[in-house]
């Protein structure tokens, strides 16, 4: 007599058709690959930027050459900067009108739903294609309040030039690590936001970064300054089609949250699986300020991503909510760093990670409480779910507490999909895949509901696609 057969559903590669479309490179201007002083000078010359910036680039290049690649995380030995084109300029100028954006580029952003989202739910949009911004626009009602949202290069020659000079790579210095130095040398594009005192931006601003060119790097710089009492929700999205050669993303995000200000920074990273995502993000929060990170990492071949919050003023608060999904061939090393550097500061970290089909997902956190951060509170919670026996999950939480009168807590769990739960759901008529998808969605749900709505829907779709098997 045969044993009862239970069909196991192979879980297939994700359907990336939403992101995985390429456009021919039309009349683009592309510097040669690799990293030399000549290339750095060429990038600077194209941008007509102030002298201090060229100086900054050259110093960063020097730092880059002095630093080693990290030896503690996922392997990046296959990433060869000599093969990466650091600057690719699409054949267009920055515009505030989608109709002036070349058809192929506009079509790209149309397919990603950006102009549509702009009409419905955003106060302003920036869109970058390869190395340059192609579109930047801020609603008049928001601009009227004195809010600045523009390309950062453009702002370098305007009334905010001095403010930018005072903040640019001060939070993330080139010496931070090798890829921060690389960024300092070849950065291009990105957005600048300034919100004046007590101005509340009611609808989110969004910058979207699209890398179309094979073998290229994207090095955008995002600088956001919230003056005291200001309030902003900023959304960052990124994607790229898959190529057979390595692409590199080494962007940099610097966020200054003033006294009593509130910033929410949401990111959905969905780079293709040939991408090395070595991005650096950091926020400094002054007295009574609040920083909220919402971070979804789904794409990339290899990621090193640990947004850092420096709680620099009394009663400053931060909340980090993150989800990472590592599929076949992906090694995603994500987490967060928090520095409690003033009394009565508090931080909450809540993350979930998933791995399947041999994917590796590692959660790393470093919470430091300095000697003067009396009465501070920190809590870290990370949960991992492995969807099969081939996949791996690690959690590496570090706490460095140098003060007695603080309250710190940490909880971590790593588990697999519970067979009893799958049986329970299947006994209600759900297929094995539907049951697993429901369990995974339920696991991710507390995080996905923090995402901007269209991204939450997108995330659920991603999970569904990722889980969809070859049944029938």
């Amino acid at each position: 007599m045969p044993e009862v057969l239970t069909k196991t559903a192979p879980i297939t590669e994700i359907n990336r058709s939403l992101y995985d479309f390429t456009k021919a490179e039309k009349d683009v201007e592309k510097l040669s690959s690799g990293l030399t002083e000549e290339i750095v000078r060429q990038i600077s010359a194209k941008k007509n930027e102030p002298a201090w910036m060229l100086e900054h680039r050259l110093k960063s290049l020097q730092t880059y050459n002095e630093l080693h690649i990290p030896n503690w995380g996922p392997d990046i030995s296959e990433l060869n900067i000599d093969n990466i084109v650091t600057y690719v300029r699409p054949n267009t100028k920055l515009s505030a009108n989608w109709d002036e954006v070349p058809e192929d580029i506009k079509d790209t952003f149309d397919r990603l739903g950006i102009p549509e989202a702009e009409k419905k739910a955003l106060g302003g949009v920036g869109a970058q294609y390869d190395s340059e911004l192609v579109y930047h626009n801020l609603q008049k009602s928001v601009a009227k309040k004195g809010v600045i949202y523009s390309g950062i290069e453009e702002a370098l020659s305007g009334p905010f030039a001095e403010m930018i000079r005072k903040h640019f790579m001060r939070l993330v210095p080139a010496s931070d690590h090798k890829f921060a130095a690389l960024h300092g040398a070849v950065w291009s594009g990105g957005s600048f936001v300034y919100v004046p005192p007590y101005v509340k931006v009611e609808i989110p601003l969004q910058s979207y970064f699209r890398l179309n060119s094979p073998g290229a790097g994207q090095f955008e710089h995002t600088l956001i300054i919230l003056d005291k009492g200001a309030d902003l929700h900023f959304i960052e999205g990124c994607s790229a089609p898959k190529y057979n050669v390595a692409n590199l993303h080494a962007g940099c995000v610097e966020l200054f949250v003033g006294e009593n200000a509130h910033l929410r920074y949401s990111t959905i990273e969905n780079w293709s699986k040939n991408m090395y995502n070595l991005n650096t993000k950091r926020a400094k929060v002054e007295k009574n300020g609040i920083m909220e990170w919402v971070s979804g990492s789904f794409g990339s071949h290899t990621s090193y991503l640990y947004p850092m919050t420096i709680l620099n003023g009394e009663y400053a608060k931060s909340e980090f909510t993150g989800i990472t999904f590592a599929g076949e061939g992906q090694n995603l090393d994500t987490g967060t760093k928090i520095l409690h550097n003033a009394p009565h500061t508090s931080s909450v970290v809540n993350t979930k990670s998933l791995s399947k089909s041999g994917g590796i997902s590692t959660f790393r956190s470093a919470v430091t409480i300095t000697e003067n951060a009396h009465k501070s509170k920190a809590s870290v919670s990370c949960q991992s779910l492995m969807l099969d026996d081939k996949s791996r999950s690690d959690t590496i939480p570090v706490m460095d507490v140098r003060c007695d009168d603080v309250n710190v807590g940490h909880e971590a769990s790593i588990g697999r999909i519970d067979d009893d739960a799958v049986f329970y759901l299947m006994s209600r008529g759900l297929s094995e895949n539907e049951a697993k998808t429901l369990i995974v969605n339920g696991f991710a749900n507390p995080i996905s509901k923090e995402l901007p709505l269209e991204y939450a829907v997108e995330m659920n779709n991603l999970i569904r696609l990722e889980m969809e098997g070859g049944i029938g």
Partner: protein
Amino acid sequence: MSEKLLEVNNYSVASTDDIAILKNLNLTINKGETHVLMGPNGAGKSTFGSSLLANPAYKTTHGHILFEDEDITALATDKRAKKGIFLSFQNPVEIPGISLYSFLRSAVKNSAVPLTNKQFREKLNSILTILDLKKEYLERDLNVGFSGGERKKVEMLQLLMLSPQLAILDETDSGLDVDAVNIMLKGINEFQQDKEKGMLIISHNMHILNKLNIDKVHILVKGNIIAEGGSELINEINEHGFSRFEIQVGDKNA
């Protein structure tokens, strides 16, 4: 078409590491009938209930299961559920992040009789009333943080919403207070209204068994069905326990 709903023939089940649990069982439940399965702890009652839904923790080593004359021995859990077999779990599993409402909606959409939104809402409201369940439960994550009694009620809610052909109730009444047991009785009575359907109740609870019309009782001891009869068996066990049957199995095994 015959009146047979479920027919189990020479059915043997082992754990995945080959320990025999159920031995050569034969049992037939006809449409409109309510059967009771009794037996001491560890007899294999829950294994039988969940193997009728192809729990992958067990494997069939011999025999067949026919459901409405179709051999379903090789069918996986979801396929059997779609044919109309429902198991009310003794220990329902917590599923975090999924609300009871959205789960019910998708389970019903998946079932043989998917309802329109309006039909679904109306049916749901009437069953909530029968089971004395507050609407707030619908917004809570499935079974998460529910008390034992709440879980059993939610199993009954799923049973009545999905309206299967055969309902297997595994200790649906265990751990419930008298009021809650009476509510479960209302649920069972509601289900029994349809004479095309059948039921297998795994229970020791005299309060519930004495109030139901029972067609047949099966006594399971050490994986064997050792005795069968009418509801008079229930009273015998209530008074004398299972010792007479356990001795019988001892003789049989000797």
